[in-house]
């Protein structure tokens, strides 16, 4: 181990040449990023529809990037590898948006009503919007608001490891090894082996607490690692979770506000599903709107800065010109307009309104997801999808096929916005040029939807969708969501009440407080607990050992924990594709 690290580090010093241009956007980086991104996109599309999970893949791409660029080609650089992971992520990220929506059309037997071309147009529009909206958001959230983007920070730690010394590399690999081993052992039952380490532990049963108490903790080192990097903001999420599960729930129970048939262990689930989670979604929305209002001066500064940078003919200009923002919005708007007009039979006026509101909503949703992800590493995509579907059903006159298709646009856009913000945070931390990262994102993001849609189509032809072979759990969830909305079973009053609370919280002077508390009510306690534990460890280490200890010791370990589990996720996705694993 030590010898390998020494060689890796040593080659770094010998590799550069003072007369050579610093390698960043290179053919090797682009090709590798596209190939690896395509591989991940195909694998996660397939696995997502069968096993129900996906992953961003940036961390894995960073490891692969080092392996190929430095290990095989012998000439990689930190910022070149940053381009690899940026492209791979851009290609892969549309998967989650696609598999949450498009398969639902197949399940409902509605896919034949829509020409395949529109599948691509809708998802491509989403990819374009996701990228273009983060042009000003990047400056606001990463440079001015200084959001942490834990995964982005972890990936930066991976990218910088070869130049950071032996100790950091050792800690990174240690984290990877532990996380990999634990995850593999946890998956023994899937492989037909006896269970040794469970995926979660029921603390309620162990502590003999009342049945209504929800106190199960996921034994996920990746989630713990997320908390280790997040720190302080995560403590608010933990506190909010405590409020939700251990203050609101028992008080609601004591006041007799529950239906008489909800008793025992069902109480916690009922309160979560019907009370606190919808309230949390509302808080997220209210908090993000307040954040948008409060951030308007900052966004103006960001836009002005970008515009000024564009005017400078010489010197250092590293911002993507603002015209890209305008062009992207216009193009996406037109794509949505064409799709809506051609498929919806709504007339030109209604189609214009739908496209316009759609673009505006995507901006708000992208801002919310980016803010939430930046502060905590959690992305409330499914919650926003619920609101999106509700809005779209209203705009389209309850046309389900068109709603789901436009929902794909939203899903791809907001997933893309969050993940690409992570990548741009990584770029900031390793010194990547933002305009170059964003250009390669624009260049390659359209590939992901094609791959994902193709895989979905192939799966449909081979196995069907929504059956035992291909359960497509996320799409089934969307189908249920649509049916609930059409049936009038939507807790709009909770959204409104939560929105008001979230708005007020974010006016408190603590940036994003409404979003943080909303997120805590939105997330299941299963994940809040290991996440909160990581945040606590971070804060304790910071107070006792200082910031240097966090940077030098905690970050590499946390990054390793996250990378290890992410890599295993991809491995299991591949095994699913190969038919080794079954639901």
């Amino acid at each position: 181990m030590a010898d390998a690290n020494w060689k890796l580090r040593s080659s770094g010093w010998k590799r550069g040449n003072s007369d050579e241009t610093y390698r960043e956007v290179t053919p090797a980086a682009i090709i590798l990023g596209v190939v690896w991104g395509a591989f991940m996109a195909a694998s996660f599309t397939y696995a997502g529809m069968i096993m129900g999970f996906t992953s961003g893949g940036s961390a894995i791409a960073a490891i692969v990037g080092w392996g190929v660029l430095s290990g095989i080609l012998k000439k990689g650089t930190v910022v070149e590898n940053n381009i690899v992971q940026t492209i791979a992520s851009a290609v892969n990220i549309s998967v989650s948006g696609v598999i949450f929506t498009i398969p639902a059309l197949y399940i409902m037997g509605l896919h034949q009503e829509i020409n395949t071309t529109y599948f691509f147009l809708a998802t491509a529009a989403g990819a374009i919007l996701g990228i273009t909206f983060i042009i000003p958001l990047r400056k606001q959230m990463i440079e001015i608001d200084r959001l942490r983007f834990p995964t982005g920070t972890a990936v930066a730690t991976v990218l910088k490891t070869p130049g950071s010394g032996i100790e950091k590399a050792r800690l990174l690999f240690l984290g990877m090894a532990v996380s990999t081993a634990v995850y593999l052992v946890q998956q023994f039952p899937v492989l037909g082996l006896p269970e040794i380490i469970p995926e979660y532990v029921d603390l309620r049963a162990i502590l003999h607490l009342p049945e209504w108490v929800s106190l199960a903790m996921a034994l996920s080192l990746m989630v713990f690692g997320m908390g280790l990097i997040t720190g302080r903001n995560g403590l608010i999420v933990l506190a909010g979770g405590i409020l939700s599960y251990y203050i609101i729930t028992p008080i609601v129970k004591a006041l007799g506000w529950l239906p008489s048939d909800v008793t025992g262990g069902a109480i916690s689930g009922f309160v979560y599903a019907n009370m606190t989670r919808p309230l949390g979604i509302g808080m997220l929305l209210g908090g993000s709107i307040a954040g948008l209002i409060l951030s308007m001066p900052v966004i103006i500064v960001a836009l002005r800065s970008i515009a000024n940078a564009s005017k400078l003919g010489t010197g250092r200009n590293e911002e993507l010109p603002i015209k890209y923002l305008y062009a992207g919005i216009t193009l996406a708007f037109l794509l949505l307009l064409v799709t809506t007009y051609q498929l919806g039979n709504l007339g030109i006026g209604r189609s214009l309104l739908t496209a316009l509101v759609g673009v505006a909503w995507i901006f708000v949703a992208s801002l919310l997801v980016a803010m939430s992800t930046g502060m905590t590493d959690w992305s409330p995509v499914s919650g926003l999808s619920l609101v999106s579907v509700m809005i779209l059903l209203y705009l389209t006159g309850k046309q389900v096929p068109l709603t789901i298709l436009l929902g794909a646009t939203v899903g791809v856009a907001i997933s893309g916005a969050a993940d690409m913000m992570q990548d741009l945070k990584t770029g900031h931390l390793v010194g990547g040029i933002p305009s170059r990262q964003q250009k390669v994102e624009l260049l390659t993001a359209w590939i992901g939807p094609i791959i994902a849609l193709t895989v979905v189509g192939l799966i449909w032809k081979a196995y069907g969708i929504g059956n035992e072979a291909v359960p497509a759990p996320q799409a089934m969830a969307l189908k249920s969501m649509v049916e609930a909305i059409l049936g009038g079973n939507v807790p709009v009053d909770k959204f409104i009440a939560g929105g008001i609370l979230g708005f007020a919280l974010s006016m408190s002077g603590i940036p994003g407080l409404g979003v943080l508390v909303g997120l805590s009510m939105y997330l299941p306690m299963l994940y809040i607990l290991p996440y909160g534990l990581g945040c606590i460890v971070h804060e304790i280490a910071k107070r006792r050992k200082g910031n240097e200890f966090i940077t030098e010791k905690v970050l590499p370990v946390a990054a390793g924990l996250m990378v290890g589990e992410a890599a295993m996720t991809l491995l299991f996705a591949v095994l699913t594709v190969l038919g080794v694993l079954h639901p």
Partner: protein
Amino acid sequence: MEMKKLFGNVLLTVGLVAGSITAARIPPMWGGLAVSLAVMGVGIFLRRQGAKEELHRAAQTGTGGVRELERLLSDALGRLEAIMDASGERATAELTKILEELDEFAEKAQPLRIEGLMTYGTIMSVFSRGERALNRAWSAFADGYEEEGRKYLRYGYDDLKETLSAVKALKV
């Protein structure tokens, strides 16, 4: 902690708890929610006032605020000057420490929001650009591209000087 700020936090928390409970009911208790929001509003007002007074007091005593920010930036600039002609390895090691301290600057600059988001945004925008330049310098030196490293070392230095000027211009 400033008493106003502390009391504001307490009221904010109480209002949030009560508001969440009343909002959680099916259907929500709108009256109770309104009262809770009023309590939260008072808490927010007190909290903001307390935070502003805290910032001003820190500035007057020199124990924090703008003077602390100036010190951090001046220190970083001095250390950058010392490594302008240093070897790549030494520059990388020193930049690692400087970047950690710059992260501290960013954290301590957060209270400046109270003095106006436009001003805060301008300062942090320039600062972050400088930080990114120094990050690039670190990466370039680590990869053995010394010319690129020195180029962005100068960019980062210039941006931090500009940031220092902007901080000094504040009237806190």
